């Protein structure tokens, strides 16, 4: 300890402190600040570039997924439209079928009715014709038969017989 104190030189202490303080201020002004600023600036620019790249990548990813979503939507839309069209076609066809069947039925019914009516008319006509013909025939037959007396008598008796049978 005695030696330490003896070795201590006030002059050296003075110069050391003075020079060192000066050195700190000079270096701060001319070296450390510019160097640290440059290093900071560089680090920030590197960080900024990295962040920008990351952001771009994220954006790309988002864009890609967006595209995919749009594609998917489009596909779905197409499916939907196709399905709708198919359904529409089916309904139209079904409806058309129904209408056709109904129409056909209606026609058949009408035709049947017409046939019936025609038939009835024809039968009535035939009946009338038959009645007229019968009367004419009867008139002619009767005219001929009843021209003789005996034939009239025979006729009457025959008729009476017939009634008896009935």
């Amino acid at each position: 300890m005695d030696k330490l104190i003896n070795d201590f030189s006030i002059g050296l202490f003075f110069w050391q402190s003075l020079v060192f303080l000066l050195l700190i201020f000079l270096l701060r002004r001319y070296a450390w600040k510019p160097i640290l600023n440059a290093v900071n600036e560089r680090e920030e620019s590197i960080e900024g570039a990295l962040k920008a790249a990351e952001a771009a990548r994220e954006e790309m990813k988002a864009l890609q997924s967006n595209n995919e979503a749009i594609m998917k939507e489009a596909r779905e839309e197409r499916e939907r439209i196709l399905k709708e069209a198919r359904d529409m076609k089916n309904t139209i066809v079904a409806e058309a079928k129904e209408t056709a069947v109904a129409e056909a039925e209606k026609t058949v019914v009408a035709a049947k009715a017409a046939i019936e009516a025609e038939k009835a008319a024809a039968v009535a006509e035939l009946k009338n014709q038959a009645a007229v013909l019968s009367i004419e025939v009867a008139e002619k037959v009767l005219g001929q038969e009843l021209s003789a007396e005996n034939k009239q008598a025979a006729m009457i008796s025959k008729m009476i017989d017939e009634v008896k049978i009935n």
Partner: protein
Amino acid sequence: MISKFTAFSAFVGLMFFSAPAAAQDHGHEDAHQEEVHHDDAHHEDAHAVEMHAEDAHGAHADHSEGHGHGEFVPASDTEGRKSVVKETVEHHLADSYEFHIVGPVGFPLPVILYDNGLKVFSSAKFHHGESVAEVDGQYYMVHHSKIYKTDAEGTITYDEHHHPTNEKPLDFSITKNVFMIIFMAVFMFFLFRGVAKTYKNSLVPSKAGRFLEPLIVFIRDEIAIPNIGEKHYKRYMSFLLTIFFFIWFLNLAGMTPLGVNVTGNIAVTVSLALMTFFITQFSGKKDYWMHIFWMPGVPVLLRPVLAVIELIGLVVKPFSLTIRLYANMLAGHVVIMSILGLIYIFASYTAAIPFTGLTLFLYVLELLVAALQAYIFTMLASLYFGAAVEEHDHH
């Protein structure tokens, strides 16, 4: 975190790997002056003895230190050689008024004394500590790396503890350590301003910035932010960065053969620790003081006791910062030079080879310690700042 740290330490280690080799070359030239026969075995210590010759005449009154400096001590005189090594190590670690490089090469530094007025003169006047310098009718003498006021003959008197009793003037000299501090400050200023300038053209570092920027980012991301927090760390970055590089570079400078021992000097580490201490106290928030003087969540009777303990802790923190850095760097230098000194003491090839290897190993270890101590100091400083600005959520 650890792996990053190891990586940069290893890098620094490689950068300075060639330094021990340079130290040995340096010693080789001096060996001739001594006429030592075991040339190879005496590289380092030959240099050491020569260096010590500087204060040979300055300390002539001090006979208890044993053998004269710069004289040839025979290998059989183990005790004599031991004391040479001891003195060499001490001299190497001490501050100096001149910058000695190699052999006779070096330059004097300005001496600034305050002794009834400011006195500025060149340390060349001391003639490497050999003679008395006369300035404005006053006489000064260097003794054990300190300036004392003496008479015209340079007489130094001692008390019973062998401490000089001569008056010491207030000494603000630009010593070797001060010179290194200023040199390192200028070097750091231009280095980091240069790095800062490269960012003007592009945000990518170039040249030295490629190596230094990861360290700056390391201090920010691994030291400042985890310890201080995102919110406050920016205010302390200048201090933390400056102190880290300052300590680290000066530690590394200490590993060169120039014998610079700035961070292993108590005055320097006290200054650094005191700055950390004052920044911590001045940035202390309400919570910080509350935790020191009136600890919440503890029985009231216990609170004054804790306050005493906390106050002791407050003082111990800068003290531990001071001693940790000082002792680590000093110890590293002492160990390396002592092991090199063993070669001189044993004076044989059998000793030279393993001890050189061991020195190399310790040298590499010291390079790691140089970075580690800078890291630890910065880490602890940021830890203290973090505690000062921390805001507790009270329950």
